[in-house]
């Protein structure tokens, strides 16, 4: 297993339907993100961003191609991992457009749920959750219910949840869409800090003009194909 690779995909394609009605949502997409790196995935609606995210997240199966996660081949014209649920739980973190916290769990348990699902003892899972909440500056709301948090706090808790099992890759689906500029930039600052601190490869799907200049590397996706571009890498400080 090559620890120098966060996520690497080669020639990944996804076709919906068959025959005359077949649609190629992804056409031989190539992408590589190193541990500790935050890259942007930018494109207009219908370009294939969500399809690529779902393939990367092992939610839908690509039609062909090869995918490597943390140095291990997980897809090579077919899934190489028998339990995709376990793969998602242990090795992929998800951040959504809305925080989607579990409303009946408090902040700590929302974060601790993933390690618990992975079989960690409750005490250890909660200790890890509190560590992450401290790192994200929301430890003071550890016992609060999600409904008692502000939008920014909820998004930070969802970032902590994505990091809870120390996955090699985090997929963030428009995490700043509902936020104003200051909060959006704050979220990007946190993502960069976490990527660096936990050596996690983070792919941020976005069409948010406020944050696009902050990426050092951007993948544009159009008509199912990706094009790599060097970003401005504007400072977040």
């Amino acid at each position: 297993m090559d620890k120098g690779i966060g996520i690497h995909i080669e020639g990944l394609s996804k076709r919906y339907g068959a025959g005359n009605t077949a649609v190629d949502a992804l056409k031989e997409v190539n992408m590589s993100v190193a541990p500790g790196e935050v890259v942007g995935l930018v494109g207009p609606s219908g370009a294939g961003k969500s399809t690529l995210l779902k393939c990367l997240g092992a939610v839908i199966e690509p039609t062909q191609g090869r995918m490597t996660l943390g140095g291990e081949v997980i897809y090579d014209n077919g899934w190489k991992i028998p339990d995709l649920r376990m793969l998602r739980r242990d090795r992929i973190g998800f951040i959504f457009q809305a925080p989607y916290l579990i409303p009946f769990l408090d902040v700590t348990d929302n974060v601790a749920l993933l390690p618990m699902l992975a079989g960690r003892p409750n005490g250890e899972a909660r200790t890890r959750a509190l560590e992450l909440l401290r790192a994200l500056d929301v430890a003071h709301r550890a016992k609060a219910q999600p409904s008692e948090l502000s939008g920014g706090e909820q998004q930070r808790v969802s970032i902590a949840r994505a990091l809870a099992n120390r996955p090699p890759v985090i997929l963030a689906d428009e995490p700043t869409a509902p936020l104003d500029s200051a909060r959006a930039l704050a979220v990007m600052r946190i993502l960069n800090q976490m990527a660096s601190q936990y050596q996690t490869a983070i792919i941020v799907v976005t069409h948010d003009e406020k944050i696009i200049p902050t990426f050092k590397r951007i993948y544009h996706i159009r008509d199912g194909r990706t094009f790599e571009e060097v970003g401005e890498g504007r400072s977040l400080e």
Partner: protein
Amino acid sequence: MISLAGRDILHSWSKFILTGLGLGLLIGVTFTMAGVYRGMVDDAKVLLNNSSADLWVVQKDTQGPYAESSSIHDDVYRGILGMPGVAQAANVTYLTMQVRKGAAFSPNSLPEGERGAGSLRESHNSDVRAMVVGFEPGQPGEPGYLVAGRRVTRTHYEAVADIKSGFALGDHIRIRRHNYIVVGLSRRMVSSGGDPMVFIPLKDAQEAQFLKDNDAIINERARTAANPALNRPGVPGLLNAIEAAQSSNHNVNAVLVRVAEGRSAEAVAQDIRRWKHLQVFTREQMEEILVAKLIATSAKQIGMFLVILTIVSAAIVAFIIYTMTLGKIREIAVLKLIGTRNRTIAGMILQQALGLGVIGFAVGKIAATIWGPAFPKYVLLEPGDAVRGFVIVMLVCTLASTLAIRAALKIDPATAIGG
């Protein structure tokens, strides 16, 4: 691992409790229906127990005295008493009728000592449906025990009433043409239909059951006198003898027999059937008639209600759990996306359904226990039924949750990701 179901219940406990309360009231109705059936069976058994008989001798080719009418001569018991194996035999009559309290009563019609507090309540005229039992003191058929007052000691116009009738000691009640004073109260002395019993002396009961009213007697006498065959001028005393025969009745409904110790009730019954040409039922046969035949239709009716209520309860639980699950589509999608196993999600829904069932069962049991005694008929809530009810509620909740579990398992984790 934390209990997702428990946390969800705690999070929305008020909704959960209110839903459980509604379901519980429905389960309470179901329990009560079962209790009504048990009460009917118990009433039938109580009727047999209270008669303290081993055999019921009734009119041939009838299933009397409770399920069908039966009429036999009141001297039959003497012949039965002489048969081997018979320890006691006594006449008894049963008549279900409306017994009036204090109606058309004249205090002067009673001896001086009995004009007590009861006569003060004369103005409260009310009807009570009761089974009037004619019995002989000290013989099978008399009330087993009293909770107040004394036994019937006079040969006429005294009564012992079941407490359920609402009569009190000293109350004056009217049965047919005569007034009776309530001298004793009994408990759980009811007919198979649940009507309270009123015990009066056998002779009074025979008169109440078989004697015609005054107008009918006068009319009958006029008809007899007008019949030249029965009113012959050359035969003095014939008309009087015929009239006397017409106005007296020597029938009873049954003879209750107590078998001597060590003798088989069935063997004694066989002898009576063979030599007396009467129908005889043992305790088991009488129970079969009362439980399997007399209340069979009511039992089926209640059974239908129970089935419908169970289906309605299942539908309500299914609907509630399904709705609650559909309200959590996004959360379930997120849980599935982050790697929660299907069995964890199914377990969460199942536990919630069972939790709802437990709340419903507790509320239902408490509600049935509270409102049961207020029912006019006896409602018997047996612990065994509660255990069976709990198991059925849990099974119903489990079945009802399958719909929601199916819906939850169909939720695509990709729903959590936009696009």
